[in-house]
């Protein structure tokens, strides 16, 4: 059966289609990143690595499963998740393609920073903080704003360090989910 009906291969993404995707989507993708990491250099690097990974994996793109942009955003979400885990932007795909390291100029950084709507962000953060339980909210504030250690947070709550860490972790996860529902819990590239 398999010889008569071989498994069809994905059509892939042509170089021309890739360049078109880049021209049409780079700015949108950059906005996606900068509104999540709030750092122009990191957003630019994540965008570059996402495109490089899309290029490297272009053979795997299957147009029957969706648009190229949606496929690329799958890669982008994984890049973002990896960054949030490690606080490091990979450059494996760019290294594989032997692409040079690029430096963001100050004017570039200014322009990218301009893509962040801080007012909206502030309102979103306030709303998201209200969604937390009082314990989670206080734990997140102690950890992120006051910069306390888990030991200090535990002493303030009168709980174990493990419990303090769990409260901060749950609070941050819930904040991330509320503020960026499209990136939370996404795993696996399309």
């Amino acid at each position, binding site marked *: 059966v398999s010889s008569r009906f071989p498994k069809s291969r994905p059509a*892939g993404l042509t170089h*021309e289609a890739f*360049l078109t995707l880049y021209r049409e989507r780079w700015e949108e993708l950059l906005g996606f990143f900068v509104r999540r990491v709030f750092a122009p*250099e990191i957003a630019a690097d994540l965008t570059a690595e996402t495109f490089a990974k899309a*290029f490297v994996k272009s053979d795997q793109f299957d147009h029957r499963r969706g648009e190229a942009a949606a496929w690329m955003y799958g890669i982008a979400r994984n890049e973002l998740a990896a960054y949030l885990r490690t606080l490091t932007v990979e450059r494996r795909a760019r290294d594989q393609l*032997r692409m*040079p390291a690029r430096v963001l*100029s100050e*004017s570039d950084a200014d322009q990218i920073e301009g*893509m962040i709507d801080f007012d909206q962000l502030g309102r979103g953060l306030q709303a998201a903080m209200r969604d937390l339980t009082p314990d989670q909210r206080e734990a997140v504030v102690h950890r992120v704003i006051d910069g306390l250690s888990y030991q200090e947070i535990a002493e303030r709550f009168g709980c174990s360090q493990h419990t303090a860490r769990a409260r901060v972790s749950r609070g941050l996860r819930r904040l991330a989910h509320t503020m960026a529902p499209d990136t939370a819990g996404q795993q696996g590239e399309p």
Partner: protein
Amino acid sequence: MTDIQYFHDLYTDFERVIASSPTSSRRRSRARWGVAVAAVAVAAAGGIIFGVSSLTDSGQPQVGAGTGSPPSTGPSSPPAQNPPGTTGLGFPGVSPLAFSHRVTLAQATATTPFAIPVPNAPAANRASLSGVFVPNRQPTTRRDVVTLVYAGSKITIGVTSQSGVWADPTKQLRVLVTKKGVPAADIIQLPSGPALMTPSFIRAFVSGSVVTITSRGSASRHELLEVAASLAVPSSPGQSTPTAFSPVNGVVRVDGGAPHPDRSGEPPLRDARIVITGTTASGVTLVRRLTADGEGRFAAKLPSGRYTVTALAYGPASRPLDTQPQAVVTVTGRPVRLRLTSHLV
């Protein structure tokens, strides 16, 4: 659309990757890209690409929009024409620098509100210039890019706008290296001043433009240095040199105080704080602070532009002055003398 040099450069990187990976296009668009890759391979035999961006926002002339369209205005040189369906380097529908179209150097110079340094080195010179590209976007801004192509794509020079006037460029470069974590960066000295050199690019500052020269593989470090060292802005009518500095000297005096024993009835306002704000001829906002000496004298060197000079001071014995004396000066390359007079309350 936002114009960010980083993503222009990244686009050219992808073009280069595509051009240098013939096997990757085997399955798709074989005939079309086969021709394109061959064309680029031939063109890349000894080519150099230059990109230049500005420092100025003011008085931008417009450039023509659309891929392959020359600007509608410009000098008497004939407009550049791309082959139908191409942008000049063999890539169908894709310019060597994304979002750009082809013009002549004279047109780019005439329609760009900033200086375009050109090289005069064996690896890149006027004779080997084969294409000039400007952004499609209208009107141009100080962040726009002009790209010069020298017989292919051996070297790319991208130029980003300088966000301010650097009093100490070497110090600023050190800060840049530290802050941005540029790998293996050296600060080198060129005729135009200090420049940044890394294994992958040289960034030089020439007449208000920031020029980044990148090798596309076949240029040696020595060739890159030669190209960087030879960058200069050709003299052309109507294009000023934004970084020409002129002395501005002044004195701050107080009307109504005790007569000065040596001079006029207006004693000097000693140790006054002077704030100079304004815009250089290239459109860069400049703010400079200095302090007058014991005789109320101050001196600064300013690039051509228009500035407001304000004395922020208290009178003798910290008595407040009723005004903060100001003067608006236009610096055009000649020394300027100022006299600021304030009045005691």
